[in-house]
């Protein structure tokens, strides 16, 4: 009896499965006069929903266009995209990242956008040139920014009040930062800051503030290591005083929602400006945050630059690049589309769109828009996109051979910069050799 019942269950399971398999499309037939435009992006649920809504709006206005789309989370996206590139299955419109743009452009996987800018097919008349510059690799534009970002220190306004300190001036120096951090720690007993000073993007920013470039011609672009040494010594001093989290303590916080500022364990937090929403959401609506310029070296220039948070690019294999350009134009300039997107990818590059959206923003986004406006008054020009081999540099040299050993006290900053230079140049050279 049991055997029979067992077999029955098994067979009905199989039958159910086979039936449902029949419903899965193995291939889709399409009408002859409909053009297909594949689009792909990364993000989380909010972005997926809003982007799909915009896509449907575009399809409603263009009935002969069928947009197929795929999306994923950031890491999965690149795993999938790399595989698709190898297999020749790329979409037409793909979301790109500043860190990979140069790699992909140099492999001729992306189409230059220059002709579309010039002809107005992608209307950039309302976009300041500084915001287009980020998408340039060599002499051509390969991606259009979908939102502007800048590095920021998120300040917990209430904590500053409790400590009895004024908010710093926007052009504060690293010396003033160190004083403020120590004062905050003395007054409140928590970290002034928990993360960010050792991040590679801060290292790049520091060089920018010194008037240098991180990479030139596939090598490290600066000669003088002393400022880096001083900077890291500052970090070590702050750690010793308890005003800055040690690396060991940092590793516990891996997501924005989990960051110490949310639970009141730090006062200043380093993030990109479009990440303020996530922080504010996690911390709750009764907190108060401001976005602040980065500190700068003594006598140096602003460490802030206007970075495209992400791009849309047209892939070289796309059979319908003009259609792709038109979609991108809609995405960038249409007011209805942006009402839906609501600056989720960053502050829109078109000034017209920006002004249009201002009334509908929540507290975090209003602050982000305001911050970007302030940065536009005082910023340094963006450096060229990262050279090929940058991810090798970051993952196999900067973090494991330079930054972590210094922060764990295994080597001194003086020893570290030597390693950074020799090993760093070695991997950059190896990558450039291709």
């Amino acid at each position: 009896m049991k055997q029979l019942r067992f077999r029955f269950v098994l067979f009905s399971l199989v039958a159910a499965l086979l039936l449902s398999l029949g419903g899965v499309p193995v291939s889709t037939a399409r009408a002859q006069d409909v053009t297909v435009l594949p689009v792909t992006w990364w993000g989380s649920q909010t972005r997926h929903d809003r982007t799909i809504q915009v896509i449907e709006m575009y399809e409603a206005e263009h009935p002969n266009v069928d947009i197929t789309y795929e999306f994923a989370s950031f890491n999965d996206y690149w795993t999938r995209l790399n595989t698709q590139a190898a297999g020749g299955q790329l979409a037409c419109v793909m979301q790109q990242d500043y860190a990979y743009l140069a790699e992909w452009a140099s492999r001729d996987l992306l189409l230059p956008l220059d002709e579309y800018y010039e002809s107005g097919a992608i209307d950039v008349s309302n976009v300041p040139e500084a915001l287009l510059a980020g998408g340039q690799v060599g002499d051509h534009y390969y991606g259009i920014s979908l939102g502007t970002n800048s590095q920021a220190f998120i300040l917990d306004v209430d904590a500053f009040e409790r400590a009895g300190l004024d908010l710093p001036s926007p052009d504060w120096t690293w010396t003033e930062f160190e004083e403020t951090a120590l004062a905050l720690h003395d007054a409140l007993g928590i970290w002034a800051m928990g993360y960010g000073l050792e991040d590679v993007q801060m290292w790049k920013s520091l060089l920018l503030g010194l008037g240098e470039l991180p990479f030139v011609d596939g090598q490290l672009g600066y000669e003088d290591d002393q400022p880096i040494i001083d900077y890291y010594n500052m970090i070590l001093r702050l750690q010793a005083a308890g005003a800055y989290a040690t690396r060991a303590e940092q590793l516990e916080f891996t997501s924005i929602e989990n960051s110490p500022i949310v639970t009141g364990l730090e006062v200043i937090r380093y993030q990109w400006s479009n990440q303020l929403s996530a922080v504010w959401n996690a911390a709750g609506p009764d907190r108060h945050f401001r976005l602040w310029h980065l500190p700068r070296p003594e006598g140096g220039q602003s460490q802030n630059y206007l970075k495209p948070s992400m791009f849309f690019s047209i892939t070289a294999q796309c059979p319908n690049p003009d259609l792709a350009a038109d979609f991108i134009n809609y995405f960038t300039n249409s007011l209805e589309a942006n009402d839906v997107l609501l600056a989720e990818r960053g502050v829109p590059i078109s000034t017209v769109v920006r002004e249009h959206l201002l009334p509908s923003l929540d507290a975090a986004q209003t602050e982000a828009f305001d911050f970007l406006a302030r940065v536009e008054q005082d910023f340094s020009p963006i450096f060229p996109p990262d050279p090929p081999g940058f991810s090798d540099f970051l993952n196999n040299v900067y973090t494991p051979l330079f930054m972590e050993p210094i922060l764990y006290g295994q080597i001194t900053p003086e020893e570290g910069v030597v390693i950074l230079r020799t090993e760093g140049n070695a991997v950059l050279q190896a990558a450039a050799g291709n």
Partner: protein
Amino acid sequence: MQNVESLRQPSTQLQIRKRNRKIAQTVLYHLTVGLVGLLMLYPVLWLIASSFKAPDEIWTQVNSLIPSQLRIENYITGWAGFGGFSFAVFFQNSFIYAGLGTLFVVASSTIVAYGFGRVKFRGRTFWFTLMMLTLMLPGQVLIIPQYIIFSRLNWINTFWPLLLPRLGGDVFFIFMIIQFIRGIPMDLDEAAMIDGAGQREIFLHVILPQLKPAIITAAIFSFYWTWEDFLGPLIYLTKPELYTVSVALRNFSDPNTVTNWGAIFAMLCLSLVPVFVIFAFFQRYIVEGIATTGLKG
């Protein structure tokens, strides 16, 4: 049987002591096993509790197992999925993949295991070694070549790249069933062979019935591993309507923008239900094992 009868005579004290010891043993058993069991479950309870918490509460009230209010919103927002594709679609895809995948792989592995485990043939050691070797290569390097092959066949965004290879069995299960087969005494085989049975008959009527625990175990493993697998579906099922639950879960989280953690936890808890149900339903078949060896028949 007569010995037992004679045991009825002695003092009730001995009986009482024996019974007390039995009770003590039972209590001790449940205490230790139950307590450690709770320890095993604690993280799961944390997940379930978090699935009902509001986003800020998840991070600010980390250790508490009791949410301040039972927010069903997490489940509703989570279930909604992305852009009109709800988790109903994702669950269906996962069932197809895990269900058919399990069926294919277990059936196939059993057959192959019998070949390696019971049949002597030339080259057996060679092929067995080769098979084990394929297990030892980290899969990441095979992804790209396999993808290129399947894309040439135009099988992207179908279930074929994921299901067809499973008809070849899986080395893990093959090896596992081989080990079980080798634990089965050959007496019945010989008896059947003397009666004129061929390999096929021996497989179907002698070995297969005795392999039930092994097969069920393999099925449970296969189902849950396939249910969890995301790398395959990630690159072969790229259209949103084909996403499996494992892939969809990851689409909620993004390191750079808002992540709806409540939704992730909620959907994760839901996705555990089928696996749990399958386990609960099938585990008794593992347990039943073999009634008798059938020699008396």
